């Protein structure tokens, strides 16, 4: 095939379409396409794909652990609140028990005091009665003596005592 390259003043490479060049180019390009796809770009793209998936997975798991953490923290807060309430209740109970005990003690002490007072009063009454009795006896005998001397009238000691007792009783009631 005649090439008109030689008649051109400029350049060596412009010229007719040489089928051999074209076939060579086609063959080499398709071969290159196949080879770089298999040995270079394919692995690179696979790796990028893998990384993309990895990143997506990591984001997902991070999201999941964030949710878990949120849930756990909520649970912990709820538990803490409950514990606080329990503690509050315990303190309340203890306070109440303390108050009750205090009241009990005071009541007991008061009762004791009352009892002691009553005992003391009873003792006093007793002593008083004893004293009165003694006085009565003394007065009776004295009166008998006085009466027998003053009015010279003999009365039996028993009647006299009865008379005196009546007077004493009257006096005691008036007292």
């Amino acid at each position, binding site marked *: *095939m005649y*090439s008109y*390259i*030689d008649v051109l*003043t*400029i*350049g*060596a*490479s*412009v*010229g*007719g*379409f*040489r*089928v*051999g*060049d*074209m076939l*060579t*180019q*086609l063959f*080499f*390009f*398709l*071969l*290159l*396409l196949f*080879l*770089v*796809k298999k*040995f*270079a*770009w*394919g*692995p*690179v*793209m696979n*790796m*990028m794909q*893998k*990384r993309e998936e*990895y990143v997506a997975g990591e984001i997902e798991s991070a999201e999941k652990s964030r949710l878990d953490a949120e849930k756990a923290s909520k649970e912990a807060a709820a538990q803490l609140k409950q514990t606080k309430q329990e503690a509050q209740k315990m303190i309340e109970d203890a306070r109440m028990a303390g108050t009750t005990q205090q009241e009990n003690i005071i009541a007991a002490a008061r009762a004791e005091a009352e009892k002691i007072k009553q005992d003391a009063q009873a003792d006093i009454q007793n002593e008083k009665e004893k004293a009165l009795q003694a006085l009565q006896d003394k007065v009776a005998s004295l009166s008998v003596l006085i009466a027998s001397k003053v009015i010279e009238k003999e009365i039996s000691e028993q009647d006299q005592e009865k008379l005196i007792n009546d007077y004493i009783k009257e006096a005691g009631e008036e007292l």
Partner: protein
Amino acid sequence: MMNLNHTAPIVENVFGISWLDFNLANVLMIAVSSAIVFILSVLASRRLQMKPTGLQNFMEWIVDFVKGIVNDTMDWKTGKMFLPLGLTLITYILVSNLLGVATVGVWGHDLWWKSPTADAGITLTLSAMVVVMTHFYGIKIQGTKHYLKGYVSPVPLMLPFKIIEEFTNTLTLGLRLFGNIYAGEVLLGLLVSLAMSGVLGFLGAAAPMIVWQGFSVFIGAIQAFVFTMLTMVYMSHKVSSDH
């Protein structure tokens, strides 16, 4: 190329087949570009780790970049199958473009070392391959009925334009790349021949050459991006259901 009257190492009628011609420089540079892309890609994707370091970061940046191109044109569900195609296109075209900017090699009178993409036949091969792929995946993903319906929607009047469009797409896609890279090499060749002409010529050519080489690197990267971008646009026209 750099002396402008350099010729290409062309062999004609290989195996006695009258239409089978080779420009051995193209064959060499296609092989070299492919090898560089393959070796760099494989070296950079060794020892892949979940926590990327060094070259793996770079590779992943390229993947993300091309993924962005695909995502701009179609939804990722159908688009992800074209990611290796886009990656191979952008790396191969970028390496091819830069090869001719950074280095140039002449052996005897023949220009051996250049950008393979500075040849219209090669860029058109790439663009034609891409367009054929769009048809293939259009039928595969949408079904033959839907694929054929695309030619007569919204109105049957569109049929001739749609058919012409397929060819113009092929031509513009291939020739845009070729034109940019070839023009870059031509100007670079002129500057080199100016630099070779003498001391004054060398001094005069040095500064513009550095500037032009920098610009060519930029152009090479842009064109690799544009080619990949348009590939995905054409692909989305064929495989997306809203077209």
